[in-house]
């Protein structure tokens, strides 16, 4: 079992003929994801790799193929429009991989998607994977294995690092979700924690946060009051200087707010396990699974 995506996920890829879109579409098909359609305006009628029909609009793709999930690999200045198109066309889950989407664009996209009743993941995220069932985005499939742990994170490669160490230690995952490193994103930690709490196959959750904002503190509060399953947390950026954007647009300590120390304190206050190093997840999750 898993959250958000499974064997029934029918995916439409926006920007399927682009450099990143085509590369990752092949990887997703290879992994077993049901990629039912692609969209590139002006290339409707073509087929991708001889198997996936390409449409001019997401509306056409949804109507002709029954796609229920969209993944977006379009340049940043077109990403907001692509997200709204997918939500308007009826996709229940929209995953935006694109990095560099202006935050003011997101202030318009966020309420639009909510009103359409869709879930947005990202932008600036690696997507998600339910090992053995489906992957949407760019998380490398071979570092994951099916198992009992839910993973949710704000970053990409750090998530891979920790998932890989879990897998090597024989600990598999229900679903790994990258929520992205931007200041405004569609899905937050709490959305994922709530879904993992409901998923009967998830027995423990690994959560990787970073400096900036208050998402982790609110997530800790949620864990304290609403979670029965053990949650282990980690915060990246303990050595980050204030006022500097650490790669991710959202990873910035503003004044004295959003520091690693304040987030770690929130985790401790919620009774969560705290991984001091990425490798510590292995033992803490093992203990949680007992």
């Amino acid at each position, binding site marked *: 079992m898993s959250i958000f995506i499974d064997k029934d996920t029918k995916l439409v890829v926006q920007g399927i003929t682009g450099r990143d879109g085509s590369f990752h579409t092949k990887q997703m098909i290879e992994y077993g994801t049901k990629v039912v359609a692609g969209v590139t305006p002006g290339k409707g009628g073509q087929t991708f790799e001889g198997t996936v029909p390409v449409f001019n609009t997401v509306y056409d793709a949804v109507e002709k193929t029954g796609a229920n999930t969209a993944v977006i690999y379009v340049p*940043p*200045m077109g990403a907001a429009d692509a997200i709204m198109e997918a939500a308007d066309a009826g996709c229940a889950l929209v995953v935006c991989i694109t990095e*560099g*989407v*202006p*935050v*003011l664009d*997101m*202030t*318009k996209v*966020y*309420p*639009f998607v909510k009103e359409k009743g869709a879930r947005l993941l990202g932008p600036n995220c690696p997507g998600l994977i339910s090992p053995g069932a489906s992957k949407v985005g*760019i*998380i*490398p499939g071979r*570092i994951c294995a099916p198992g009992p742990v839910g993973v949710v*994170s*704000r*970053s*990409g*490669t*750090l*998530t*891979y*690092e920790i998932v*890989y160490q879990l897998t090597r230690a024989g600990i598999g995952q229900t679903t790994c979700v990258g929520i992205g*490193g931007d*200041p*405004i994103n569609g899905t937050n930690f709490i959305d994922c924690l709530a879904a993992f709490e409901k998923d009967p196959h998830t027995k423990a959750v690994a959560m*990787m946060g*970073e*400096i900036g*904002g*208050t*998402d982790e503190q609110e997530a800790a509060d949620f864990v304290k009051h609403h979670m029965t399953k053990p949650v282990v947390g*980690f915060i*990246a*950026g*303990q*050595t*980050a*200087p204030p006022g*500097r*954007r*650490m*790669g*991710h*647009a*959202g*990873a910035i300590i503003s*004044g004295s707010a959003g520091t*690693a120390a304040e987030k770690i304190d929130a985790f401790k206050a919620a009774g969560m396990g705290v991984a*001091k*190093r*990425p*490798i510590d997840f292995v033992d803490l999750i093992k203990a949680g699974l007992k």
Partner: protein
Amino acid sequence: MNLHEYQAKDILRGYGVPIPAGEVATSPEQAEAIAMKLGTAVMVKAQVHAGGRGKAGGVKFCKTPADAKEKATAILGMHIKGLTVEKVLVTTAADIASEAYVGIIVDRQRKKPVFMVSAAGGIDIEEVAAKTPEKILYVPVDTRYGLRGYEAMRMGFFLYQDIKLVKQAAKIMQQLYAAFMASGCSLAEINPLVGTPSGELIAVDGKMVVDDNELDRHKDIEALRDVSSEAPSEVDARNCNLTFIKLEGDVGCVVNGAGLAMATMDLVKYYGGEPANFLDIGGSSNPEKVVNALRIITADPAVKCILFNIFGGITRTDDVANGIVTATKSNPLKVPIVIRLTGTNEEIAMKILTENGFSASSDMDEAVQKAVQLAKGGKAA
């Protein structure tokens, strides 16, 4: 990207915000000439990307042009928080009857821009928010509809009693909001918004921060970037499409991905070392990025050891290995290097490195410990 006060004021003036007349000077003589032209008492204000300019002596009131020349002589070349003042704004001094704070910031929790206004202007708004939150009115704006007339009026009434001032303030809110949206800002503020004894409102200081992700859309704003306030290595890195932040330590870090880069710095600290930088070479495995990264890091004399930490997901570790070999052939390293690679094409990468006289580990903790030891002048285990 931060704009200087004079740049922000130029933009705000373009949207109709009342701003005192003024010009930028780079020499005391220029400052004197501008003061002469203005024909009023002036303020000479250091243009530097640092808070607390006033406290540092970078803002002075001058009665005469000769006075402006003298004050400009003192301020130009002054160091404020490590930055050298190269420009001053010479601007008409305002008669002050009241001071208010007006700002808009993108609020992560509300997922909207939020206006913050307070009649307690001219001071640090964070302090007001912490100590007397009731003195601030917050007004979130739905950017799909823009700032509505009644919202702007509500802020006007919160700040002033006199209906003439209320209406002026509401108009300024609309102008500030228009400038904020059109320039792709993450923050814009007027502090203080001054009420003069004759009943006019004027923006005496202005600040704008533009979202870096908007700069592709706003080449005119990108052109305003002042690189003199940045570390040259950071400017170099940005031109090579690398995200680099210089720090004070001695372990130079080259990592793929922002989260892993932060976690690597933290691990350096965990094992008793100090990271020299944050550097994310990004997801693509272009060997050129590795070459540039090594050039930028080795240019820092404080770096005693270089640490590569690459998790090959999308990034091919053999590409990174080739980059390291190419870079060090043309520019042999003067400090030790510790390489950690794992993931995509790891075996090929290890072979390339070994054949070229490098050793590499696949374990992150092991590599970081070794790098910390080497930076301290110790021998690696």
